[in-house]
């Protein structure tokens, strides 16, 4: 067994193989599920994953409490978390990049007015032909309320655009605009997490636990409002995942963000439960810090989303 000063290399562990089995079952099960063979395998994988994740983190926390983790190991955890967040940044970059390409480049090609260059807005022959031959009648516009399919094929179209978009509703309706409130809530929650962090650093546990609890609450409120917005979109705006490229990009971007907020809220909740149990000190707080970094990250993604998806429509 390692001493405190040397790097802790754990003994053999059953955790990884069980996790890999859970992941394998989830992957196979998810594919079976979408091709219509039921979700039993997927659910089994999910349950295994949930249990083994709980166990794995319990063991890591326990090792930390027993003082097995020296500063160098803690630094490995810090690096692991930061690079994990970087990989998440790149995941969102793929979807933001897709949105940019679809809005700026694809849309003008479909509408037939893709130009030669920045200083010459004459549409290229190819773009004109693309529009005239394939999608006659489609005019490039964002948000696209009519799909190219609809413009060309009318009532026979497979893809139909939304009735309404999530755009900025005008200054008069500003205060009843849900995305604005969601922005306020998420930015506030980032601040409250920071206040909680400051409390922990100053050994003020009351401040730490109180403000952390408030952050979790704000995260939950954000998610409830987001569900509310989706229900409204589906029921009253004719805006669904299938509403052409607008519905596609809107729900995929906000949906993945929502999934990450859910994960972040769970991380903060676990940190809160641990805080109430007396974990963390002003010197040993990685579990909480990792959750807070993740939380700031989802906050930044939301601010980008707010401007790109909602405001500058």
């Amino acid at each position, binding site marked *: 067994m390692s001493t405190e000063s040397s790097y802790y290399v754990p003994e053999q562990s059953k955790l990884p193989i069980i996790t890999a089995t859970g992941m394998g079952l989830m*992957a196979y099960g998810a594919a079976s599920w*979408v091709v219509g063979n039921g979700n039993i395998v997927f659910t089994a994988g999910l349950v295994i994953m949930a249990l083994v994740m709980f166990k794995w983190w319990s063991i890591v926390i326990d090792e930390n409490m027993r003082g097995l983790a020296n500063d160098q190991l803690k630094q490995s*955890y810090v690096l692991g978390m930061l690079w994990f967040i970087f990989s998440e940044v790149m995941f969102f970059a793929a979807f933001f990049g*897709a949105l940019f390409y679809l809005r700026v480049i694809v849309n003008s090609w479909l509408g037939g007015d893709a130009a*030669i260059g920045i200083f010459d807005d004459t549409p290229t022959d190819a773009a004109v032909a693309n529009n005239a031959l394939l999608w006659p009648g489609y005019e490039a516009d964002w948000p696209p309320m009519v799909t190219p399919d609809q413009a060309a094929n009318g009532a026979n179209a497979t893809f139909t655009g939304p009735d309404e978009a999530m755009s900025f509703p005008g200054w008069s309706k500003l205060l009843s605009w849900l995305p604005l409130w969601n922005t306020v809530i998420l930015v506030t929650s980032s601040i409250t997490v920071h206040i909680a962090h400051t409390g922990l650093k100053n050994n003020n546990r009351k401040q730490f636990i109180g403000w952390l609890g408030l952050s979790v609450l704000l995260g939950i409120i954000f998610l409830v409002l987001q569900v509310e917005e989706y229900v409204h979109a589906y029921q009253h705006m004719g805006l669904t995942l*299938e509403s052409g490229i607008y519905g596609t990009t809107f729900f995929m971007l906000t949906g993945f963000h929502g999934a990450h907020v859910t994960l972040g809220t769970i991380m903060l909740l676990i940190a809160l439960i641990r805080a109430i149990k007396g974990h963390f000190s002003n010197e040993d707080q990685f579990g909480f810090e990792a959750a807070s970094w993740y939380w700031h990250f989802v906050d930044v993604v939301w601010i980008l989303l707010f401007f790109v998806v909602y405001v500058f429509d």
Partner: protein
Amino acid sequence: MAHGPATLADGWRAYISRWVFTTNHKDIGTLYLWFSFSMFLLGGAFAMVIRAELFQPGMQLIRPEFFNQMTTMHGLVMVFGAIMPAFVGLANWMIPLMIGAPDMALPRMNNLSFWILPFAFAILTSTLFMEGGGPNFGWTFYAPLSTTYAPESVNFFIFAIHIMGASSIMGSINIIATVMNMRAPGMTYMKMPLFVWTWVITAFLLVAVMPVLAGAVTMMLMDINFGTSFFDAAGGGDPVLFQHVFWFFGHPEVYIIILPAFGVVSQIIPTFSRKPLFGYSSMVYATAAIAFLSFIVWAHHMFTVGMPIAGELYFMYATMLIAVPTGVKVFNWITTMYKGSLTFETPMLFSIAFVILFTFGGFTGLMLSIAAADMQYHDTYFVVAHFHYVMVAGAVFSGTAAIYYWLPKWCGKMYNETMGQVQFWVAFIGFNIAFMPQHFLGLAGMPRRYADYGLQFADWNMVSSIGAFIYGGAQLMLLYNVIMTIRNGKPTTEEKTWEGAEGLEWTVPSPAPYHTFATPPELK
């Protein structure tokens, strides 16, 4: 941990649990290497099916639908199952030894990264037995072939890619954390062996682009099953978007494959030249420059897609820029050998062949980068020949060199030098017979990914198939050599197997003890 690792003598139960539950970087490295070799044989078997069918014009052995599945699965298995895990295996074995660390930074996650792979490839391979067949849209899985017109098994392919990606990301984070955090005192960044340098840069590329691949397959999944229109112009999307997202992943991916190969060769050539590597720091900067450029050249795979001329020009010039840092590397390898006291053991033979053939593949890459010329070369066998020169003579040759080079350190036995050299010559000759004619076929206009071809292509196809069978045989010889070394090889206990070898891995006994550097070594 006082006791050593379980062997077969401890009973099969203990032996299996040693490998399944292990947290030891050497065990996990071994697992990766054996897994990747078995995938190499599987992907190789697919290649043999392809070359057997193409031996003569006309359809002889398989149906065209199955041929498409073979080309697709050959590519996927070789890229994700054989080459990438092979280098991760080398990283696991060698990086802690090279930087004087007791193990990888996160040992349990290390084991998880490995054990995801058998599940992922079981799922991927199982698609071949599904109704409608396995993936048949090429390893680049362009939409709408992989969405609208794909067999149902594409969903299994998508989720297999997802968990493979998770494995790669975790493995890479582990490597980055190990290199940044676990170096022995005195091992500054600019003292790290080049293999470590190339791997940490590769790991950065992996963390950056694997999530983009996850994004691409997620968009496919949504388009296929949930009515979105990312890649469907009818809804306002664009199939070309798929190619952009895919190649934003795909181009860095080819450097993910080749950079660790550069690292291996940069270790071996100085050893057998008995001279330090020429231009160490320029090697580091060149690697970083190649990694940076890999992010801004992706659309050179898409010259015929109908990009605006400004785009074609930009991607053409940016691509040509890569020749500069790559040229620096080739120059340095050659200059390392210049006036060196050269000997030509098997690892050195493979490394020299690497330098020659990789440079050749680099030149055909330069030809392909010329947008106007690419209109002719695009999707022909010229492209197939080009990337096999860099992937096989590049990555696989250097991987083979690494096996011969470090095998004595891993198992404490010396391979049979004659057998090694015979294997090298069979591989070298077979490889060139297989792939050199494909340049001619491509320039003559033979398209890739077709099960049949016109009569004018018959002769060179037959030559190519014969070469492919010889090259396939060379891999069985490699397997034979490795097994014979482990079982009957001449024991060696020397710390320094090779006279000219430098570095911390040559300061530990052979075979390397199960645990090394529990207390970090001091570097002068």
